[in-house]
């Protein structure tokens, strides 16, 4: 019975702490986590499609650049890339600003934390998205591309009317995986000071000494975000692949 009343006490403490303002802070943390993930995914989509195009190119030089990109950014720890962009970026920005005299010789120009973070996570996400796009492009039926050429479509028309819709359709399941990876990577940019879910949970845990409570809550919230995205991507997949599933 003592155990139960103890548990009850734990719950009421948790409730008080969350109601005292940490709950709202955590909700903001979710908003920032989603913002970081969405922006990183978009940066990754642009980079990923360029890298995929490079990897599929006939030119050896471009292929080498594409291969190197995916090898490096999938092979390095995410945290290292984030440090590199955030602290390295700060060093570069400061150096440039000092040499042009826009700041004093002892001043420091910080890399904006959101920008540095989403660039780093976006670049990593781009490496994974490049693989997804490349695989999807290779899965397009060659004859359909040939038909587009035979009907006089320019390279741009073929890209817009045949390649993009088909790559998107084939890429949806793979992009769902990258989205989950990117949500998890977004936790790492807490080191740059973006008040996303991880950093908020950290602050709450330290200032209230309720680590178990706040990390558990944050863990549940991450799980909710990743699990909600699964059915959304499944629905998107059903929609985009409707031409391959029998009509009812």
């Amino acid at each position, binding site marked *: 019975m003592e155990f139960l009343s103890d548990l009850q006490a734990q719950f009421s403490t948790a409730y008080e702490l969350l109601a005292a303002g940490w709950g709202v802070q955590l909700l903001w943390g979710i908003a920032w986590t989603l913002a970081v993930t969405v922006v990183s995914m978009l940066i990754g989509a642009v980079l990923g499609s360029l890298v995929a195009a490079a990897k599929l190119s006939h030119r050896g030089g471009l292929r080498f650049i594409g291969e190197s990109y995916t090898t490096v950014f999938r092979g390095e720890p995410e945290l290292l890339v984030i440090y590199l962009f955030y602290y390295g970026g700060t060093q570069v920005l400061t150096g440039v600003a000092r040499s042009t005299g826009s700041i004093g010789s002892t001043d420091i120009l910080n890399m904006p934390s959101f920008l540095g973070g989403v660039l780093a996570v976006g670049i990593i996400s781009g490496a994974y998205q490049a693989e997804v796009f490349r695989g999807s492009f290779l899965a397009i*039926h060659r*004859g*359909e591309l*040939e*038909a*587009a*050429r*035979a*009907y*006089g*479509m*320019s390279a741009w*028309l073929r890209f817009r*009317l*045949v390649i993009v*819709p*088909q790559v998107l*359709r084939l890429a949806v399941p793979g992009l769902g995986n990258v989205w989950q990876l990117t949500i998890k990577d977004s936790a790492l940019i807490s080191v740059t000071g973006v008040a996303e879910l991880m950093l908020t949970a950290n602050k709450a845990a330290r200032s209230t000494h309720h680590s178990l409570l706040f990390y558990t809550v944050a863990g549940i919230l991450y799980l909710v975000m990743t699990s909600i995205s699964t059915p959304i991507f499944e629905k998107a997949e059903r929609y985009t692949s*409707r*031409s*391959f599933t*029998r*009509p009812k």
Partner: protein
Amino acid sequence: MSANVAAAAQAASSPDDKAAISVKNLRKCFGDHEVLKGISLEAHKGDVISILGSSGSGKSTMLRCINLLETPDSGEVRVDGELIKMKQSRDGRQMPADIRQVERIRANLAMVFQSFNLWSHMTVLENLVAAPTHVLKRPRAECLEQAEALLKRVGIWERRNYYPPHMSGGQQQRAAIARALAMNPKVMLFDEPTSALDPELVGEVLRVMRSLAEEGRTMLVVTHEMGFARDVSSKVMFLHKGEVDSVGEPKDMFARPPTPQFKQFIANFNK
């Protein structure tokens, strides 16, 4: 020079008399293997030319060289009298000099493929209007109207909102022929249009092709359908090992095969 001769000379050079397709001395290698060893062909308006040959004879490659899906190593291709301009690339291979010209000419040469190659993410109707609206830049409403009429003609109007993978091979190929017709092409190129079909579906496709021939369309048809070659086409061309073995009117060709190779070829079919 009498007036008659002058008139005849003028008629000979008038646009009506220009060959719809003129191919001269086409050569093409894949690696060390020479697939086309100097092929020439002329198709006039209204001609239906069946191109026969065993597999590996180069017939599909020849057809694909006409719309530059394959780049010939040498030789010239004219469409409606217009020469497709070629240039040497840095590695010494021939390539189209002006891709815009190639795209414009391709739009006049609608191709029907062995494996249909309909765009699988578009409905049948969208397949028919995609190229006319985007390549020929015709108004969408007009294209839709024409597309519906063409689908009625090939007998699959009820399937206009289906996606190609949901239809039978015969229906897909008829949709592909309608897609070709939607371009109002000067010449239609058929690359073994019935070879991928189940035997019971061949008839419906051949019926459509026969009706096109009857309305005077210019068609180059690479095929294994001896019946079509004999009864529908105006000319038969037999390729053997990358060369034109024999050309002639179908009734002569089939009644008295001009070469032992062609005789052997039709004998194998009649077995």
